[in-house]
């Protein structure tokens, strides 16, 4: 597909993505911060529902039709340090890189500054990457749980999907989602 058709496809998929983020309320800073403070569980529920769906979908695509997967290479230092910075950034920005755009669309004006900061952060990393590369690379490659266990991807994926679904069922019993959203659907109680 050429770049223009690909851009149109991206736009259409993005609209669906943004719609789901807004309706699911996970773009709200109060919902994201509330998850990290264990006050509300909307973000975890939505996140795990997306993971479970992805596991089932990819088990089918890969297991039945051999569609190639794209797991990222294991570089433990980069993932621990980078993941930690990502978590701190989520709390300060009140957003993830994707939900930031949903905040802009929904009308939060401070999110434009988070976007500017994000572009600056990505550019800073681009310039720092040659110096950081020796510290990052040299990991064990594309490790996946199914390969480590020596089992087919679809079997491990469907097992994990079942375990996560049971966990979500228990979580929903303990914390019904409607009560978690709060009266203004922004993760704040009052």
């Amino acid at each position, binding site marked *: 597909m050429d770049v223009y058709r*690909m851009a149109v496809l991206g736009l259409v998929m993005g609209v669906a993505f943004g719609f789901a983020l807004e309706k*699911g309320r996970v773009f709200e800073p109060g919902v994201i911060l509330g998850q990290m403070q264990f006050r509300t569980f909307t973000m975890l529920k939505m996140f795990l529902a997306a993971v479970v769906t992805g596991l089932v979908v990819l088990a089918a695509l890969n297991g039945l039709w051999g569609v190639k997967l*794209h797991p990222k290479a294991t570089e433990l230092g980069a993932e621990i340090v980078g993941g930690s910075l990502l978590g701190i*950034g989520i709390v300060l920005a009140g957003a993830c890189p994707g939900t930031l755009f949903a905040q802009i669309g929904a009308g939060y004006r401070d999110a434009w500054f988070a976007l500017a900061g994000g572009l600056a952060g990505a550019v800073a990393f681009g310039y720092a990457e040659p110096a950081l590369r020796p510290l990052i690379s040299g990991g064990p490659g594309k490790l996946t749980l199914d390969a480590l266990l020596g089992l087919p991807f679809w079997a491990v994926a469907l097992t994990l999907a079942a375990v996560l679904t049971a966990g979500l069922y228990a979580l929903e019993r303990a914390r019904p989602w409607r009560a978690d959203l709060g009266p203004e659907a922004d993760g704040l109680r009052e």
Partner: protein
Amino acid sequence: MSQTRTDAHGLAPTCPVRQGGDALRRRAWSPYAAGILIGLLQVPAFLLVNTALGASSSFVTLGGHIAAWFDPGAMDTAYFAAHAAGAKNWWQVALVIGIGIGAFASARFSGTRRGAVAPVWRRAVGISGFAPRAAMAFAGGFVLLFGARLANGCTSGHGVSGLAQLAVSSMVAVAAMFAAGIAAAMLMRRV
């Protein structure tokens, strides 16, 4: 179903979670419905784009082109050059722009209006003015994307997509993300 009454903050006072009626006009969907829809987007991502859902590398594509306005040598950097062109990179840029449009449409359909700054910030960190919150958001965005690019993925690429592919790298990144996020959030007031 449209909401006409709003309070001083421009927020509708009615119960946010209405049941039945038109799904597009509803203010909130169950997080499970929303999550399943996002998970299903992996089908066109893998079959048509030959990649997994992700968001953070689009910042390198856009940021690299912006950097090239100021620094003509920016595209000599291998990292910027790798993200500058090609269908997959522009697909992801279009994806994040689409996220903004989709959220805008969704909020419009439900009549949900949002102020300049979410009320959680005044409660959690005592910030009430726009300028200090804008500065915090900029700093947060910087750390967010520096971290995501260092980890080679964000909540979408490592989280939603990486875990669904059983990638060990993503399990480590997501664990670090939640651990540091929880630690940072616990330093703020619980509201």
